[in-house]
């Protein structure tokens, strides 16, 4: 269970942005809607333990994440939160499977190549595991970044504008993959977007005004 309680944040010299309380139950799939500049990224960063809010509390599975030390928070994030960015951003000097192993080792989990292969297989890119990011297409890279986000079976899977740079067909594919992966890994899914195309797929919506 993930909960957001009386959280507000402000950047230096700007006025406070307040976020209404939010409770996400295990296995739910949520859409985080908001126009550009509405604080969507800020909220995502707060939710993932990247940005400490000025006020308020974020709990993930009974852990108040901003009560952790910086090092513990990094490790907690590595094990419990999978993030998919708008663009894939893989480590160019490492092969696809090494990129996934990297995620395991940063979370201080043992290297599990079976899991790596299984995840790549479920996303249909197992044949690319020894390739380097330069050799893959944009669509394939997006799949690898989804694989990297779910490799450690996180409790929370967060995607930031995963479809905004894709055409209708690919947006649908990526969205399906996200739904399918969060289901397969029993992860709670939060997709942040201003893309109206994905609206219909979700029952739960958190809207930023």
């Amino acid at each position, binding site marked *: 269970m993930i909960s957001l309680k009386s959280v507000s944040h402000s950047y230096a010299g700007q006025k406070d942005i307040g976020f209404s309380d939010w409770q996400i139950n295990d296995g739910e799939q949520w859409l985080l809607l908001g126009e550009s500049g509405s604080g969507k*990224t*800020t909220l995502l*960063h707060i939710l*993932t333990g*990247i*940005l400490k809010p000025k006020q308020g509390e974020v709990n993930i599975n009974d852990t108040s994440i901003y009560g952790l030390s*910086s*090092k513990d928070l*990094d*490790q907690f*994030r*590595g*094990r419990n*939160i999978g*993030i998919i*960015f*708008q*663009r894939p*951003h893989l*480590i*160019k*000097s*490492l092969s696809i499977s*090494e990129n996934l*192993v*990297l*995620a395991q*080792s*940063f*979370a*201080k989990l043992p*290297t599990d190549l079976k899991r790596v292969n299984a995840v790549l297989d479920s996303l249909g890119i197992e044949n690319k595991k020894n390739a380097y990011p330069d050799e893959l297409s944009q669509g394939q890279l997006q799949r690898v970044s989804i694989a*990297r986000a779910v490799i450690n079976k996180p409790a929370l899977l967060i995607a930031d504008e995963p479809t905004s740079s894709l055409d209708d067909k690919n947006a649908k594919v990526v969205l399906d993959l996200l739904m399918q992966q969060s289901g397969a890994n029993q992860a709670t899914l939060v997709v942040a977007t201003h893309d109206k195309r994905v609206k219909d797929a979700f029952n739960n919506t958190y809207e930023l005004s």
Partner: protein
Amino acid sequence: MSPLKISWKSLWSKPLSSALNIMLIAFGTGILTILLLASNQIAQKLDNNSKDIDLVVGAKGSPLQLILSSIYYIDFPTGNIPLKEATALARSPFVKRAVPLALGDNYNGTRIVGTDSNFVGIYKLKVQSGKFWDKDFETTIGSGVAESQKLKIGDTFYGAHGLTGNSDVHKSHKYTVSGILEPQGNVTDNLILTNIASVWKMHDEHEEGEAHEHKDGEAHEHKEAEAHEHKEGESHPKDEHSDEGKELTSLLIQYRSPMSVAMFPRMVNETTNMQAASPAQESTRLFSLIGVGVETLQWFAVLIMLIAAISVFVNLYNSLKERKYDLAIMRTLGASRGKLFLIVIAEGIILTLAGTIIGIVLGHLALQFIGNYQESSQARLSGLIFLKDEIYLFVAGLAIGIFAAIIPAIQAYRSNISRILSKN
């Protein structure tokens, strides 16, 4: 996956700039290695050759030249000294041991040294096969000579006048090899030793054209007898030639007690027509002359290392700008600030350590190469000797790596990932 492996992979993804950095550091380290090895080996050779010799007495002239010719057998001798005066000095109470030297001939560039059994004592020589020279024209040769001139016991050869070249061969007598020395690791490996009388007789024959009575097999007292004729700009007083008695090139002296240091050289320089030179002093002087060049090269190498350090810094700094996002992603995957710091520092250290190792290997190879092409076998340098001091080169490499990487590493440590991620 360890931070080291991540750093290693990251360097391999930019092979050209990594190679450039490694080359710069290898070049600087290589020069330092060559300087370190060469100056160490030269100093050791200087020490080895003059270990038990406290003083050299010879004809007046440059003391450095006297040392070079009588201890290292490199330069020309300064002239000759009368045997009578040399004998008187050798009997002085200050002197424990005096070794007479008569130079002047060579065989294919190897010097023939007329001396006596004191020479064996002062250099602690042993024969490897055969025996020490005994009769006239018997020789005992250094191990290096046996090897390079392909001489063995029983072989005969003619000496030639002068210190190099064989234009003026003494055909009247031939030398016989009667013994070969054990390798000594000093200058005696490259000498041909015989008795003084042989050198004198060789030159008796040589100067037969000049009118004087010559009775074979007799101790000669003719005025022109000279162990050596090279005067190298020295103008000997005319009356030296009219002195009665034979001449020597120089006398190697071992003191009886440390007290002699203060008294003996002054006595020689003030009361006789000869000069006394201390191998230790002259070696130091020689080294300080070479030292200027060595120091310049050293600064040059340090400058290259500095440029290398800056180049590694710029490389890491620029790559950090490109990789800011990569590093932020690593943080979201669970890597701590400390881990990012390690990854960046490790890149710097890998670059400089690789450069240092390659530089040290190159330095050794280069010195071995130089040694192979050196003409003078007395001062041959070897690249196969390793020194403890080379550890300092490693330490320096490590320090440069840390120095160049510390600022980028701190930046990686401090980076605000939320800001980096939200910019894209």
